[in-house]
């Protein structure tokens, strides 16, 4: 293996921006995000000798960051109030809403709306959407980062999307004039 790539710096620094973004989304505070990233790198460096080469380094880093956050004061507060495996609990069932293009088609100009909707999502929905859509991780990678089975990744992701969609819908209807509703386009497919 390339010696440069084999070094901690060579592997970890390219992930700096995305880990910071993720940390800021979790903590919702710049200072706490910096502390979280710093602690993640310190822990990763310390445990680097136990990292198995050939396995997914990115998922490993996200796992460390997330575990560090969940054991922080803010993380513990969240996990104490909201069970992480909400979707596995009996009786929790989100109504399946049949999406129609008119209600959910979003234009690129709706960043702020989506950002505030993401901010208001429960942590376990927010993080899985970020890993899937922003980091473009595969289901397998997400399952390694969150330490859950792939089946849970699929069900949690599906519920996260449904929740976000249902929360965006009233805004879309109210603010239809300000949102460019994409009709008759087929880009992305």
């Amino acid at each position: 293996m390339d010696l440069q790539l084999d070094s901690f710096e060579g592997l970890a620094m390219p992930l700096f921006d995305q880990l910071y973004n993720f940390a800021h989304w979790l903590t919702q505070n710049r200072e706490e995000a910096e502390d979280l990233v710093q602690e993640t790198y310190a822990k990763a460096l310390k445990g680097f000798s136990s990292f198995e080469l050939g396995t997914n380094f990115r998922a490993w880093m996200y796992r460390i960051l997330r575990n560090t956050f969940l054991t922080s004061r803010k993380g513990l507060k969240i996990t104490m109030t909201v069970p992480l495996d909400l979707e596995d609990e009996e009786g929790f069932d989100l109504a399946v809403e049949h999406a129609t293009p008119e209600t959910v088609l979003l234009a690129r100009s709706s960043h702020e709306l989506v950002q505030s909707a993401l901010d208001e999502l429960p942590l376990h929905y927010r993080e899985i959407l970020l890993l899937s859509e922003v980091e473009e991780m595969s289901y397998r990678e997400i399952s390694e980062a969150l330490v859950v089975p792939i089946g849970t990744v699929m069900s949690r992701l599906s519920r996260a999307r449904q929740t976000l969609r249902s929360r965006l819908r009233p805004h879309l209807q109210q603010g239809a004039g300000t949102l460019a509703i994409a009709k008759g386009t087929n880009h992305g497919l």
Partner: protein
Amino acid sequence: MVCEELEAKLDSYVDGEVPEQEMRTFDAHMRSCPSCSADALSRVQMKSAIHGAGKRYTPSAEFRKRMQQKIAAKPRRSFGLGWTFAAAAAAIIVIGALTSAYLGTRSGKDQVFSEIADLHVATLASSSPVDVISTDRHTVKPWFQGKIPFAFNLPELQNSEFSLLGGRMTYLEQTPGAHLIYDVRKHHISVFVFQERSLQARLDENPISPKQLPFTLETWTQGGLRYFVIGDASAADIDNLARLFKAAV
């Protein structure tokens, strides 16, 4: 039928997580079914909206610089594994040393050697063996300023087989000193530097030949400082590093 099948797997489909064969079936269906293709389109656009909105925060330049400095020139993986192997040796040596100390059969001089050996192996077993990680003597030497009550010179290693891995502060009999770690052919060698007068009561011979130690150890006094070079490398390597230090003073 495909519509029903697809609806259940639409998320996996837009995430590209269905098997290739199934993917082709769904692709073909999309071209002929306006309802499914509109649904898929809305999901893809939602993904794209989150993708754009989710890239929201960027680290400050100051924070990036701080982190880069922190992790720059950190040890490579193979280096880390070295410590793991050293840990096994450390456990054996530390137990051995403790047993010997308990039995109280050693002379004061041998106890100092034993302590030096303990410091060497315990440090190598640590997950962060050095506090200043650098191969540059001009980085390592200034690091000790203000931390230890004396100054010393580090040898130039160009054209030698040795490489500096870093350094840390250490204590021997409550006396602060410098601990440097060098690498030669995958062997780690420790160099300890203390003020001779602080150790006078324990070491009155010069040079001293160590007895019954599982390491090669060389020690001498120069310019009021006591040097120890210890490691599991060959006696010739230990001697060569000692010569470099003697020449550097």
